[in-house]
């Protein structure tokens, strides 16, 4: 509790005790004989609990803020006190004090709840490093990360947060990236590795050459993204904003009508019935603040966005959260999303020699090439030397011919074999086939393919249990490969043979086939698919740690490439939307019920206070569930 809150608590207790005392004095000593004396006894607790409300109310009238909560409470309670002076009216002094007391208690609870959620959210956001350690004049000094420039070499001690993005120049360590990715498994960092700000250095001292200024480092970008996410408001938030603008004036106006109009038609006379209607009208004023909604709805979204970022899921606005909850179609890019995006040797078929001999020969032949296939071949066998490889010729679209140890070796596709008069046939296999021939003799082939992520199948079936009815893959692969992957993972369908620029068209076709309220998400890795990410209802980029392009283009960013986070994100989105709906329905329902009941005079004023602040507190507590 803050100092201000403790002071309020003290006033609440003091005023509650004095109110009880006042009731006792009133009932036993005064017994209604002197109106003024009774008033004086009740005014003591009233001023103790309500002086700041009255003060703010006066100040707000001067400032021209008519529909302010303080003013409305002041009018309601002062009005209740004044009713005692009407002839034949029942004095409402204890009620007035009680209402003010209840209001302040509610406000205190509200302030504590808001403070608590503010703290939980800022704890989530507490990934920002405060200091950077740099060597100056032979001494290690701590300095503000903002003062470090690109090219500086900083030291990261064990237990420190890496303050700026950079490349390790010495040392090796393992890093806790959980603040960025939500992944608890530490990553290793050694000389030459790129490291990202926000990670915690776990085991060894590192020196890092800074590659990005603080403002552009990963941690700053993430914080900025989460903090500005409030600008992309959801439909629920826009509704609440509009509602709040008209609600208070409307209720106040209704209160005025309720106070002064019905007595005109009364048979008992205007003055005789006025007090009763006045009380009903004052009850209206008490519930005229839309606070419960104005606080709880944005809090739900803010909490969810904060909670998601803790899990390594960055959401750029509550509108995307809202859309994600309605998604029923997931479109995936293949490479880097469903598959690892790295090629590997998956099969070797040798006609003449041992399998690893064939692989070694192919790797040698391709040892000068940087083509992904050559890289895959080399990484499949160790210690490939290229000293005895000469006369290397790359034949675009076919493969490579080279002289290895005096033999002419051909390495490439079927066309390369055929054009050299070698008989070979294409096996019925998924992936890229590299045929190998030596001195005109066919040796066999090696199959290289992109590996499916082990978690892909599980992730897709998880999505299906969440009610995602359509899962689609977009790929540039030929149809046979695409279909076998689709089958292996359990997707519903695929679009194959797509050039990068065809992907937007394919997505548009998928989207136009559906009813407009059904939303489509596109999942990609941000490489080559930025236009598709932007075109989808929700663009989700995966494995985005360190990829600025992906963070820029996507609406939702998964910091690591764990495809199973998709269902986590959907569950969070749906939970948030459910909480928001509950709060809107609950707050509006209670307020409407109390408004209607008070028209007929069934609502005591304290119940109206509950409808105001009590509902707000409950709604805030409910909203805080999104943080978990």
């Amino acid at each position, binding site marked *: 509790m803050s100092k201000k809150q403790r002071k309020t608590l003290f006033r609440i207790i003091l005023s509650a005790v004095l109110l009880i005392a006042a009731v006792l004095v009133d009932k036993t000593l005064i017994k209604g004989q002197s109106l003024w004396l009774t008033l004086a006894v009740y005014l003591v607790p009233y001023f103790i609990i309500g002086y700041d409300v009255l003060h*703010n109310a006066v*100040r707000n009238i001067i*400032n*021209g*803020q008519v529909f302010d*909560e303080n003013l409305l409470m002041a009018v309601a309670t002062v009005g209740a006190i004044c009713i005692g002076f009407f002839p034949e009216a029942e004095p409402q002094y204890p009620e007035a004090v009680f209402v003010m007391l209840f209001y302040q208690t509610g406000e205190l609870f509200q*302030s504590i709840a*808001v403070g608590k*959620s*503010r703290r939980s*959210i*800022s704890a989530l956001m507490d990934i920002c490093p405060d200091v950077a350690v740099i060597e100056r004049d032979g001494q290690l000094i701590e300095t503000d990360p903002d003062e470090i420039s690109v090219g500086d070499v900083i030291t990261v001690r064990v237990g420190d947060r890496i303050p700026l993005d950079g490349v390790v120049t010495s040392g090796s360590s393992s890093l806790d990236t959980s603040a960025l990715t939500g992944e608890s498994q530490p990553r290793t960092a050694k000389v030459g590795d790129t490291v990202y700000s926000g990670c915690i250095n776990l085991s060894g001292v590192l020196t890092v050459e800074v590659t990005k200024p603080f403002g552009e480092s990963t941690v700053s970008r993430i914080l900025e993204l989460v*903090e*500005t996410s*409030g*600008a992309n408001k959801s439909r629920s938030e826009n509704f609440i*904003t509009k509602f*709040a603008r008209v609600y208070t004036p409307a209720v106040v106006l209704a209160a005025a009508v309720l106070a002064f109009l019905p007595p005109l038609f009364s048979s008992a006379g205007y003055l005789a019935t006025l007090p009763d209607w006045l009380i009903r009208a004052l009850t209206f004023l008490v519930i005229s*603040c*839309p*606070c419960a909604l*104005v*606080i709880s709805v*944005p*809090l739900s979204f*803010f909490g969810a966005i904060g909670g998601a970022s803790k899990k390594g899921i960055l959401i750029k606005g509550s509108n995307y959260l809202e859309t994600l909850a309605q998604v029923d179609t997931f479109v995936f890019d293949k490479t880097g999303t469903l598959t690892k995006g790295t090629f590997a040797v998956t099969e070797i078929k040798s006609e003449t020699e041992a399998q690893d001999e064939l692989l070694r020969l192919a790797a040698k032949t391709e040892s000068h090439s940087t083509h992904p296939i050559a890289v895959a071949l080399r990484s499949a066998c160790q210690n490939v030397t290229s000293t005895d490889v000469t006369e290397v010729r790359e034949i675009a679209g076919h493969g490579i011919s080279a002289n290895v140890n005096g033999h002419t070796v051909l390495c490439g596709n079927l066309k390369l074999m055929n054009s050299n008069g070698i008989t070979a046939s294409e096996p019925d296999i998924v992936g890229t086939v590299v045929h190998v021939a030596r001195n005109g003799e066919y040796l066999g082939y090696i199959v290289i393919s992109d590996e499916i992520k082990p978690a892909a199948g599980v992730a897709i079936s998880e999505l299906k249990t969440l009610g995602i009815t359509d899962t689609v893959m977009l790929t540039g692969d030929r149809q046979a490969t695409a279909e076998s992957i689709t089958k292996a993972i359990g997707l519903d369908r695929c679009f194959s043979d797509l050039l990068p620029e065809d992907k937007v068209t394919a997505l548009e076709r998928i989207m136009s086939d559906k009813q407009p309220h059904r939303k489509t998400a596109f999942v990609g890795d941000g490489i080559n698919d930025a236009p598709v990410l932007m075109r989808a209802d929700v663009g989700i980029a995966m494995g985005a740690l360190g990829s600025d392009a992906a963070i820029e283009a996507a609406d939702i960013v998964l910091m690591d490439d764990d495809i199973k986070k998709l269902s986590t994100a959907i569950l969070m989105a749906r939970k948030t939307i459910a909480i928001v709906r509950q709060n809107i329905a609950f707050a509006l329902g209670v307020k409407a019920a109390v408004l209607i009941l008070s028209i007929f005079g069934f609502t005591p004023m304290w119940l109206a206070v509950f409808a105001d602040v009590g509902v707000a507190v409950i709604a805030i507590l409910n909203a805080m569930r999104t943080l978990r």
Partner: protein
Amino acid sequence: MKKVFRLEELDCAHCAQKMEDGIRKLDGVINVQVNFLSQKLTLEAADERFDEILKDAKKIIKKIEPDCTLIEK
């Protein structure tokens, strides 16, 4: 120019909305966002009139929630 300020003692969510609406109407304001939960004001306005706008914005804030103060970082 775009700057972020801290709003101390911002206690009323409804007021935050009113501040945002009020400041948005100031001449030269490109964008403004008052975040009740993070207690932050993000103001984007024309460079040459920024200080003037900030002064007017402070007045609006004081008017709506007198206890709330804008902290310049």
